[in-house]
């Protein structure tokens, strides 16, 4: 089959403002991913097309972009899963500065991530027998969902509250705080809750729910944010 792509282009060395580039590909299969199509444009037609990609199967989180108006990973989006009968429209994710074409500046995103203490602070000293800390299966399951995050930014850049204010830590940072707040082995819950109770923390979330369907890992993002809100209100885990 033949498909048409409409790709948002911007080269900071040449262009005053972004424009739409249009490309036609033939011999396309319904099982091709959007990433394969973008690679074909780059490799066969226009080497200046610029995007990030690495693992190409939805694990590394490099290729988040807006495909037909929805945040997705290009590599896990097969043509058969979207409407490819019309032009497929591809843009950079919103709310982060565009560097070039589909590449955005992730520094602000990672700064928010780093601000929530996204690391393990043990509640107890290491076991004197030199073995692992024990954790029950139930305690391990409590935070399983938020361990899946790949930091692709699909959630944060789908959030109207984040679009309105880039100061908001955003769903991805809260997901990563949640992963530790609800880990029975961790001892820094109150510090993280205090950080997230700040004006640019969880209360910027207006429960719009864009983040949950945007997550390519199917994390229940809005639910995780809600659990953090509740923990703050209850003042403890």
């Amino acid at each position, binding site marked *: 089959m033949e498909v048409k792509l409409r790709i948002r282009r911007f080269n900071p060395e040449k262009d005053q403002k972004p424009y739409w580039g249009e490309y036609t590909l033939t011999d396309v299969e319904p099982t091709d991913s959007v990433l394969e199509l973008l690679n074909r444009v780059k490799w066969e037609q226009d*080497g*200046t097309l*610029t995007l990030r990609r690495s*693992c190409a199967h939805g694990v590394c989180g490099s290729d988040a972009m807006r495909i037909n108006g929805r945040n997705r990973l290009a590599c896990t989006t097969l043509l058969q899963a979207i409407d490819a009968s019309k032009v497929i429209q591809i843009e950079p994710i919103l709310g982060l500065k565009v560097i070039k074409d589909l590449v955005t500046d992730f520094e602000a995103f990672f700064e928010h991530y780093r601000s929530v203490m996204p690391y393990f602070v043990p509640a107890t000293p290491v076991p004197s027998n030199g073995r692992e800390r024990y954790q029950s*299966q139930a305690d391990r399951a409590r935070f399983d969902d938020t*361990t899946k995050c790949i930091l692709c930014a699909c959630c944060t850049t789908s959030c109207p509250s984040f679009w309105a204010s880039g100061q908001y830590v955003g769903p991805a940072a809260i997901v990563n705080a949640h992963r*530790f707040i609800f880990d029975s082995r961790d001892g820094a819950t109150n510090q993280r809750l205090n950080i997230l109770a700040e004006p640019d923390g969880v209360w910027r979330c207006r429960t719009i729910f864009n983040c949950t369907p945007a997550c390519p890992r199917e994390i229940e993002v809005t639910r995780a944010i809600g659990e953090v809100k509740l923990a703050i209100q209850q003042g403890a885990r």
Partner: protein
Amino acid sequence: MHIHQFDAVVVGAGGAGMMAALYASRGARTAVISKLYPTRSHTGTAQGGIGASLGNLEEDRWEWHAFDTVKGGDYLSDQNAAKVLAQEAIEAVIELEWMGLPFDRNDDGTISQRRFGGHTNNETKKPVRRACHSADRTGHMILQTLYQNCIKENVNFFDEFHAVDLIMNGDRPAGVVAVSIDTGELHIFHAKAITFATGGWGRMWSTTSNAHTLTGDGPAMFWRNGLPLQDMEFFQFHPTGLYPLGVLITEGVRGEGGVLINDRGERFMERYAPTIKDLASRDVVSRAIYLEVREKRGIKGKEYVYMDVRPETVNRYLAEAGESRRIDADYVRAKLPDIMDFCKIYAGVDPVESPIPIAPTAHYAMGGIPTNIHAQVIRDGKETVIPGLYAAGEVACVSVHGANRLGTNSLTDLIVFGRKAGQQMADYCRHADFVPLPDNPAGAIEAELERIRSSKGKQRPYDIRKKLRSEMMDKVGVFRQEDMMAEALETIRQLKEDYRNDLAVDDQGRRFNTDLLEAWELGCLLDIAEVTAACALERKESRGAHSREDYPKRDDVNYLAHTMVYPEGDGLRIAYDRPVDLSLGHEPKERVY
């Protein structure tokens, strides 16, 4: 030109790189240079588990883990290295748990373990539960945990800095040159100690589980600086890549009871490995699949077979084996959630309802930059150390994995030898001085990048790469023979000519020029492919992943030694001058599973 000075520099931010950085940072000012954001590194795609003989569910011993590693490596593994790996795996896995890694748990709260190919109880010869795991995303958890700890410890990262040259001053390392991908500017990192942890080069073959970014940059930089490489002909094809894309489907599927089935519905591994069947080591299983396909027993006569993890199938074989364990669909979904997703997205298959179409996929480099068991880079078969230079993880050849790596041992390798590289760098930096930078240290690489940027020939990098990859797949793949490999070598040399003289690059800009950097990566693949094909041609025996139809037997008289390949002029010289360490006393035996 920007010049940075750090005591220690780590190139690559996967598992080995970040482990090295964490340890080096404790005693030295350390910087990590990575062409990706660290959490994009390929360690994150490892699925099934990390091997360590914790013995949480049944008796296990590090000695068994070491022997299994040596046997899996078809006796080319250095036994002193296998000993370090197996012994230190235990504390390394515990350390990961202490760092917060969310392992799955047993009923008693200890780390959960599962079966994996080639890992056995050496007395009963039965599979043993040694793979410590977190669902089927163990690599993701390791990568995230290490990155989190690096943030906690304030490690300096230079994200999206693409290393393009190692700076040597005479025979001593002085630093690294990297391109800031965003600005396109060159940066020099002047350092006392340098660790390379750049990963593998699966992108050399057309069907691969590897990320686009795995292009052999590390070994290419060493090679171009006159340093040798080791055991380059040994590259593992993982038996179960999702057909036809090659996305990895973990051996953990078979560890949980999944079986391989041909078009006749036969569990064909019973014929190739009567004792441990589907859990034989990867080279054995990949060859079995190829042979089934060749005998027209691929599914519908095509080039794939099925992996069946439907509960009714698994339970039937568990009953047949006299095991009391039974599984259901919920169990499979809980243990293999990502595999469920990959199969649904890319093959339209729900593995609890239908079998998974699979075929071998280029997966892992056993060879690479030669090191000793302390992660120190060596320059010859006499193990002469290059002070201040280290390598760890897939890019390094210790050699732990010999001719074929066992599943779960790559993650173990990252942690154990990444840690060693970090400790070594911290110690070294305490007493060593900086080696002065030579004059114009980035001159040669700057000229090469400018040549690529302004090249106006007729061949797109993509076309050259496509030819290279299919040539390697067809002629230097699972089965090999003299005439095919000689042809491949000729083709590679022609492609290198085309790359030098007839390249066409579109993007002439500076900022985020991935057209330029992809073309540069292709140059690395070409150099390393030539070395790989030459080494494969020279080793006239079959051992582990190197399987020659014209020399089907292992030849311990002539080839029980590591291949050292040295750059010489425009060519190369191959010598078998690094002996295999046999210090655990495991004499080479016929390998039966």
